[in-house]
């Protein structure tokens, strides 16, 4: 594809021409991130990237990396971020935050001056109403300290759910205060479960009563988002509480994130219907949205931290003498290069995916991004985990020395990771995909083993030699042909495998966690491949700096991911349609739980 006109115009042209009128319904409201089912039988690939890829359907629009249509917007946000970066570097003092257990007055002032608390709030409520690309860029900067990030993050996600579910009164009451940073929000969503408050109804009023409710929020919170046992979400402002009400907060001793309030709340409050956010009994959905709405910015923060880590690591390795060779540095060791390769590729893939997704949402076309959003959160977690291990490997003792910054970073990351979890997501993502798959493709369950066996040869051939049908490479730079082919193989394979699973298991697949997890891994790989290919293609075509490296990285990443995909899917296929390869992943864990631990005898034990 030769582009003589700038890409932005080109993109507008192609998107406009290919999208049908029904597809370009502009959505003014905030995107919703809670994973849901998409039961449309046609044009799934136009509405959801991951679902389309799993169905082996391809929409060329998804190969165009979204970007700002106006260069001035890019300059604006870059300028904004530069000011933010400079002012944060002047005021931020990690040691002081840790010691005081709160953000210092100067940091808060900086955040307020840069309007950080209002970035996600609509203009009519005194916010900046920035788009998702802007938000991602800003949160990359805010991640200079995890405490600064998480305080801003809480504010963002709480204002997000109020924007989506709040009534007009609730919006005009709370959003301006949140934008000014006067309301310090906290919410009751913990990693393990959704803790709820006891409810007592009397005379149109509701009494919320709870002790030891786990909450996370800005330091010294005065605005709470809690959930009742009737599955409603309540907004409680401390200033509005009556004389009989009480709020007592106790902070937990956490490993990191000392500047964020993580702790337990005792609450007794008399509330009425005006305190309910959304419809009564919509609590679960609000909670899912609360978590979902913060994932892109969390991933963006991860990118920011990872970029800084890689910069510091290269300075460290370049200046540290090698442990084995005289007159060479740690950076010359093949091992260091190998370790950093993994991390760098992860960061590159995550960055591509985050801005890809942010951009897709910003385009305003009705694309469903729930699955991708959840996948990105998983990727961010993986990146953070491997970042810690890389630091332990390369920085050595300095990684755990409190005179160096690494140690605090590691503590903060582990705390952040433990606050939220994605444990439910794997099944949700997989089933949301498979259910769409089942309604969008005609398939019948084959009960006869003989028939399955006869069909098997064709399927296993398709797995080995998937062949090309979409010719995705036509939509990317020629240098990425290999990467595009890998993506296409991966698409065909996942379709074959789902079809196989569905014919053999039908709805029983929902019991098979091993298969679902493998599917999710494959979908993750597919998302990364699409976003890196389209990004590298764009970068090279317009000649961004170091775009030659991007091409190389994308190629290696795609070939790796494609191989990993094949491996995952191969486990799911079965021999001659009879013997399952799918290893008994779960049985081992089940045994551990049943036997209350590792019950295998020590190998030196004797029996006679």
């Amino acid at each position, binding site marked *: 594809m*030769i*582009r*003589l*006109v*700038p890409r932005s*115009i080109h993109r507008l042209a192609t998107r406009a021409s290919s999208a049908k009128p029904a597809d370009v319904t502009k959505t003014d409201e905030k995107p919703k991130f809670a994973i849901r089912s998409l039961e449309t039988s046609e044009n799934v690939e136009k509405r959801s990237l991951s679902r389309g890829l799993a169905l082996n359907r391809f929409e060329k629009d998804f190969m165009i990396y979204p970007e700002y249509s106006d*260069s001035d917007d890019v300059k604006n946000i870059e300028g904004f971020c530069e000011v933010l970066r400079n002012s944060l570097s002047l005021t931020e003092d990690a040691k002081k935050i840790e010691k005081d257990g709160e953000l210092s007055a100067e940091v808060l002032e900086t955040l307020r001056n840069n309007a950080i608390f209002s970035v996600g709030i609509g203009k009519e409520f005194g916010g900046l109403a920035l788009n998702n690309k802007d938000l991602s860029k800003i949160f990359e900067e805010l991640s200079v300290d995890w405490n600064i990030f998480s305080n801003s993050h809480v504010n963002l996600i709480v204002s997000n759910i109020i924007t989506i579910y709040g009534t007009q009164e609730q919006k005009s009451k709370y959003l301006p205060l949140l934008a000014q940073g006067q309301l310090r929000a906290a919410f009751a969503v913990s990693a393990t479960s959704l803790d709820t408050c006891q409810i007592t109804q009397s005379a149109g009023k509701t009494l919320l009563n709870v002790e030891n409710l786990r909450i996370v929020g800005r330091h010294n919170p005065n605005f709470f988002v809690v959930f009742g046992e009737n599955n409603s979400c309540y907004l409680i402002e401390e200033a509005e509480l009556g004389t009989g009400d009480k709020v007592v907060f106790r902070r937990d001793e956490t490993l990191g994130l000392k500047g964020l309030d993580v702790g337990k709340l005792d609450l007794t409050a008399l509330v009425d219907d005006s305190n309910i956010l959304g419809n009564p009994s919509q609590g679960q959905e609000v909670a899912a949205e609360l978590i979902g709405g913060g994932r892109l910015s969390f991933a963006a923060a991860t990118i920011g931290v990872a970029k800084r880590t890689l910069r510091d690591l*290269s300075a460290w390795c*370049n*200046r540290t*003498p090698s442990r*084995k*060779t*005289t*007159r*060479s*540095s740690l*950076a*010359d060791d093949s091992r260091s290069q190998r370790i950093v390769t993994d991390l760098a590729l992860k960061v590159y893939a995550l960055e591509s995916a985050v801005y890809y997704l942010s951009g897709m949402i910003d385009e305003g076309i009705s694309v469903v991004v729930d699955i991708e959003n959840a996948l990105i959160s998983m990727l961010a977690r993986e990146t953070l985990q491997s970042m810690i291990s890389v630091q332990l490997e390369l920085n050595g003792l300095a990684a755990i020395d409190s005179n160096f910054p690494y140690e605090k970073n590691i503590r903060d990351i582990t705390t952040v990771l433990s606050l939220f979890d994605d444990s439910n997501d794997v099944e949700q993502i997989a089933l949301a995909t498979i259910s769409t798959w089942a309604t969008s493709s005609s398939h019948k369950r084959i009960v006869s083993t003989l028939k399955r066996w006869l069909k098997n040869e064709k399927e296993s051939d398709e797995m080995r030699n998937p062949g090309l049908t979409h010719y995705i490479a036509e939509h990317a730079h020629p240098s990425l042909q290999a990467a595009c082919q890998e993506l296409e193989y991966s698409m065909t394979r996942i379709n074959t495998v789902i079809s196989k699973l569905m014919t053999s298991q039908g709805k029983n697949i929902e019991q098979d966690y091993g298969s679902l997890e493998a599917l999710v891994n494959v979908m993750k790989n597919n998302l990364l491949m699409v976003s890196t290919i389209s990004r590298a293609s764009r970068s090279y*075509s*317009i*000649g*961004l*700096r*170091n*775009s030659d490296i991007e091409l190389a990285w994308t190629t290696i990443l795609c070939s790796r991911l494609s191989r990993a995909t094949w491996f995952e899917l191969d486990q799911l296929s079965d021999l001659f349609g009879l013997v399952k390869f799918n290893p008994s992943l779960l049985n081992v864990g089940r045994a551990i739980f049943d036997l209350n631990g590792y019950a295998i005898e020590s190998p030196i034990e004797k029996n006679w």
Partner: protein
Amino acid sequence: MISNFVRSFSRSLTTRNELVHVQKHFEGVEPEKRDRESFLAAVAQFKEKRGRTHVEFINTALKYMKDYGVHKDLETYKTLLDIFPKGKMIPQTAFQKIFLHYPMQQNCCVKVLDEMEWHGVQPDKEIHDIVVNAFGEWNFATKKVKRMLYWMPKLKHSNKYLDRRHVEGKSLSPSELAGIALKMMSRDPAAAISLLKLPEDAWMVTSQSLSQQKLIEDLKTGDEIFVDRSTVYVQDNKIDYIILSGPPKLPPLEEFKKEEMDENYENWFEDWKKRRTEARRSIHEQDFEIIYALGALYKNDNTTAFRWIENLQKTNKNLETLRIRLRLDGNSKFNAI
């Protein structure tokens, strides 16, 4: 402001409705007043008159661009191309499309674009639109601007050693420029670039890496090393820098390496262990010299270079024992210290 200037300018040049020779627009301005504003004023004045001698005017303007210091200014090129009338020269019939329609004008337009390209001015969407509005979507001149828009951004960052965004459109002090130049030249990623500010706006920049310090440590008492000056360009900025270098110790690298298969597998592991601890040839050990440090000075003479060496001695103790020859002052004899 510009319109005021135009008025006064036109008054000074001509009386009302008098013909002005195109050359006069630019020649008439005194050399010291030749700047962007007066250039734009001249163009504005021409446009106000709606003169029909576009080609002549633009050709003349091109000649004077450098004089007025606007040869790198995208906006000026836009204004210049904006002189062409809109719509009139867009080919309508098949014949007009096949043959060069308004050849003089198109050639003139291509000439302006060539000038732009020559001076490395990056085109943008607007300049494309200006040309399209004058000559149509697929005319010769338009193809030129489309090709520029395709290729120039692609090749914009072909110099991977220098991020031109750090230089372009910024007013950098000489020391900052020197820092950028040293960073561009220091291929060792471990190189630390340090700026030493001295009283009265004097400054010295040094680029040295740990392995270079190690190489200096390895020198023996009385070894001879040199300080020379050289020049490098960062975009349009000419920058003088100095090199601290000495004679090579290792034989030059062979251009072609003969592959040898060592089939003797005895003591392989021990050999390998010994070999891997051996020092590797660093990037600073070039075929004909070893480079110990790079620097840039506010003044390139031996006295300043001496101060630079003195400063360098703080981190490189071994320098005291070496014979350092400063060769900055033109043809002066080698000054040993």
